[in-house]
């Protein structure tokens, strides 16, 4: 398991996955087990690196934790909400409110400005209006993007786009943020800067994070690493 001494479990856990299995049935009838009896617990402000080669199942695990994919078996509790049996509609609402995503290919909406990209989540969900706008401005400030608020993604550098994506992930004050290969498109120096930023932001807010990566260099930014090979978790 972990190398550092385990602190006593805090009163709130960000993520509790127990015995989670994901099985795909192929066209020819055979079964592929993408994830096998995965058990993982995250404290409410813990940062975990999920490390493994391509096809290892780390993306599957991340997707299930984020409520983007349903598990075949097992229990998933995120921020106190049991999403194991949620239907698609309930998962959609869950994602709006409790989870933040930073995708590998960033995936900002290309025709929206940086500020508007942050406001997308509010647009799609509760539509609080002014409070959301204030929060967006504040996040942009913290992320050093205040002067880039009106720029389109095409007008931003790779690192700046990454920061906008992080801002978007934090807009709804999630219990858990999922980072999918956040540094794969960046050079070493920029990658380290981004990881620094991620760690600072997560810790400052006390938000849990899962960082999916195959890059061992960045695992030191996380509290611990969990290795995934062939669908099985390993310390």
């Amino acid at each position, binding site marked *: 398991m972990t190398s550092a001494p385990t602190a006593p479990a805090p009163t709130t856990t960000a993520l509790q996955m127990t015995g989670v299995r994901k099985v795909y049935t192929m066209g020819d009838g055979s079964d592929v087990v993408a994830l096998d009896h995965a058990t993982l617990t995250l404290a409410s402000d813990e940062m975990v690196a999920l490390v493994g080669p391509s096809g290892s199942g780390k993306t599957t695990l991340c997707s299930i934790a984020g409520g983007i994919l349903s598990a075949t078996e097992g229990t998933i509790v995120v921020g106190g909400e049991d999403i194991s049996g949620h239907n698609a*509609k309930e998962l959609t609402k869950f994602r709006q409110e409790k989870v933040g995503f930073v995708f590998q290919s960033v995936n900002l*909406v290309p025709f929206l400005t940086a500020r508007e990209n942050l406001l997308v989540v509010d647009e799609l969900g509760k539509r609080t209006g002014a409070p959301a706008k204030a929060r967006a401005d504040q996040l942009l400030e913290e992320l050093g993007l205040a002067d880039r608020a009106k720029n389109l993604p095409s007008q931003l550098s790779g690192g700046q786009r990454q920061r906008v994506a992080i801002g978007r992930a934090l807009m709804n004050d999630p219990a858990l943020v999922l980072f999918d290969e956040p540094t794969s498109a960046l050079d070493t120096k920029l990658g380290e800067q981004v990881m620094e930023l991620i760690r600072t932001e997560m810790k400052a807010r006390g938000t849990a994070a899962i960082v999916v990566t195959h890059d061992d260099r960045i695992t030191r930014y996380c509290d611990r690493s969990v290795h995934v090979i062939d669908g099985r978790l390993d310390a």
Partner: protein
Amino acid sequence: MKLALTELRRRPGRFSAAAVILTLIAILLMFLGGLLDGLIASSTGAIRAQDADAIVYSDTAQASFVRSRIEPQTRAAVEAVPGVTEVGGIGNVQLGARIPGKGPRDLAGVALFGYEIAPTGVPDAPPAGQAWADDVLEADGVEVGMIIEVGPARTPIEIAGFVNDTTFNGQASLWASPDTWREVLSANRPDAQLGPDVWQALVVRGDGADLPALIDAATGGATTSFTVDDAINETPGIQEQTSTFNQIIGVTIAIALVVIGLFFALLTVERTSLYGVLKALGAKSSTIFAGLVAQAVVLTAIASLIAGTLVVLLQLLLPPGSIPLLITPGRIILSTVLLLVAAVLGCSFSLRRVLRVDPASAIGTTS
């Protein structure tokens, strides 16, 4: 939906080609409709203007003035029908008119009516030798007080004044006293002249449901009577024109539906990854689809607006008498509504794909 409209505003280029196509289709719809409306209006103005509860033709006339004749005894029978309050004779003759200032071989087509009961908008019959003229003749340079010569016998008719929307069979109408009409008829169409109390048709006012049927029964089937609306429909050619045009318009709407469906299907394919991201962030399929429909509706509305403006312009620029085009607000609105319905239905081709977008596709290595 705000997202979808923002995209429309920020990226007009990718939508502009589709907008051009939609505008072309909208122009087609409005032009076809305007053509139909124009044909009907110019054919039937004189009948529409009749302030009557029934128009009576003879039974073999097939709702055509020129082939109808009502003898005095038939008229008496009609007058005796219970519920009938007023009966007036009506007849017309179609001739070429020579107008001062126009070339010797350049005649204007006119339909000269003799009438007893004045149609709506037409005053009582003027004195002998005079007539009220439909204002389409103004385009030929006709003025009040001018004397025009009608028919091969060059019967002089003085213009007493103008009336509006009373054209008949595509020709300008002249409204004169019964005596003037008979004089013109016998001088110019001796083969069609009628005896002194014989009329081509009768205009009847009365009470009672189904007056036309009562009249026909009373005359023992010697007449075929219609309400004004039915008379318009029975005017030779009207029904065929209407159904033909409506069929063509219908197929054109289907084309609009397919084109919009095609365009938005393509657009949806292109935006699959964006939709994946939005769904991952918590967007519902219904929100995404509503945005699509909103874009289609806005595009169609803009196309209809441009098309409407262009066809109104076209009507203004057309020389009178070239194409019978009549653009009414009603027609523009109808065409727009039909197109909007087609737009919404066309989007349904993309619905399945929008539903099928998997939020999980947003995560993972880009393949």
